[in-house]
């Protein structure tokens, strides 16, 4: 499998606080890779560092074999798109869905906007009835569908997903996860997905990395979660916690 996204010895420092300590990972083309850990473990920082939203202190990031410089070029932003956790915060409150979807098209100079918007809305199961609504007229799940449509409309090859379903109800989460799997299959996308929920990662990803305090604790295949074949104590604790409350 050819490497699509490769991170090598990445360090991120905020003032004196080291948020990432020498983290490396390699995600193959078409693969879905998960990052788990508790708050403050650095999983979201890693995603944001790849997207260029936080400064990198040292280490390298390569997309499709090409090393990224300090400043990302336009082609990078077309290739790599991100979906954020909070669909209430990530959509412009005073723009209609149509306007929201036109923005990335204008930035990347697409001419067939009309067609693309219609197709993108269809693809995420919203239909054209939603096109001229504002985000406050949509439910949480519908907003997240708009956010996914906005990411997909420029035809990226990598999607960075930062807790895409943790603000949603369980039943809506299932719908959005199904949608993400569908588009990944249809477009042969590569996913890098962050979640605090081991079950979501196990469902969506082939491989995953467990993080704690800015470091990688363990990398493993999703199937070894089901067979409880894990070597680190911290991973075992996470697994146990995901089983629910046990009266002692």
């Amino acid at each position, binding site marked *: 499998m050819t490497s699509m996204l490769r991170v090598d010895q990445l360090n991120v420092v905020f003032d004196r606080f080291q948020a990432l300590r020498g983290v490396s990972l390699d995600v193959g083309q078409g693969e879905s890779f998960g990052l788990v850990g*508790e*708050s403050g473990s650095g999983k979201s920082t890693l995603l944001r560092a790849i997207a260029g939203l936080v400064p990198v202190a040292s280490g390298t990031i390569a997309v499709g074999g090409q090393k990224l410089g300090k400043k990302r070029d336009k082609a990078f932003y077309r290739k790599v798109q991100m979906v954020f956790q909070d669909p209430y915060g990530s959509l412009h409150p005073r723009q209609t869905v149509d306007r929201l979807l036109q923005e990335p098209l204008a930035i990347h100079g697409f001419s067939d906007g009309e067609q693309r918007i219609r197709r993108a809305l269809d693809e995420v199961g919203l239909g054209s009835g939603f096109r001229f609504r504002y985000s406050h007229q949509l439910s*949480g799940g519908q907003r997240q569908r708009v956010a996914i449509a906005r990411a997909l409309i420029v035809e990226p090859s990598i999607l960075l997903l930062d807790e895409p379903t943790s603000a949603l*109800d*369980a*039943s*809506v*989460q*299932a*719908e959005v*996860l*199904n949608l993400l*799997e*569908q588009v990944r299959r249809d477009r042969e996308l590569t996913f890098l997905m962050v979640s*605090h*929920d*081991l*079950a*979501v990662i*196990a*469902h*969506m990803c082939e491989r995953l990395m467990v993080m704690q305090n800015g470091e990688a604790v363990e990398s493993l295949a999703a199937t070894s*979660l*089901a067979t409880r074949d894990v070597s680190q104590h911290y991973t075992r*604790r*996470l*697994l146990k*916690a*995901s089983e*629910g*409350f*046990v*009266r*002692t």
Partner: protein
Amino acid sequence: MSALLEVEDLRVTFPTRTGVVEAVRGVSFSLGRERLGIVGESGSGKSQTGRAIMGLTPPQARVSAAKLSFDGLDLMSLPGKQRRALRGNRIAMILQDPKYSLDPVMTIGRQIMETLRTHEKVGKTEARERTLQMLEAVQIRDPKRVFDLHPHEVSGGMGQRAMIAMMLIAEPELMIADEPTSALDVTVQLDVLNILDRLVADRGMGLIFISHDLRLVSSFCDRVIVMYAGKVVEELKASDLGRAEHPYTRGLLDCMPRIDADRHPLPVLDRKPEWAA
């Protein structure tokens, strides 16, 4: 078992520009000294049910009930002053996010002392002593240090423990916990639940645990009420969750991804209009 709380045909309605919204539509249940879970999705009316019992419904909303009694007291007709005396004293509530529910400009110790001294006549020294004991009871390792910290100086797990300490210090008989662990990390979640579990068992409190997480609630509570669109669709013993009959309950259980099952695509809820009828 004598009922601590009896709720019959509870309704909460909100007037809005486009008409009346019925958030809670005729909920009935009774609670002894046990752990009762209320589960449902956002908008199912579970939080408004808890708030109506507590008397914290927003002023523009209307609450009505055929019966709403706590230990023989009729909460619907109780004057505001007496209702307020109950709140925090005999009925307490834990909210979701300690970041928003603790006073940001008061130290944790002072907030807890304030609660205690509002409800009981105790001197400052004794109040401080009891506050420190309570902080210790919620497994805060260095209570003296935490006593003097402000809420922004502690982690979410620690803040939620402080909140539980504050709610328990007046030794309530009924505790309403509205998503007490949803803002916490999974590993911290279990610690907080353990503390809550032990305190409820030791003190013989009644507990209403409100959550969207059906599986968590059923592992923690004795009984579970499932709400949909402001109504109770099913009530069952937590141990019988696997035998749930209502398609909504079954759907909620089914749609969550599991670590040891490979199900692609995940089953989704097929909402039927008659569930809300």
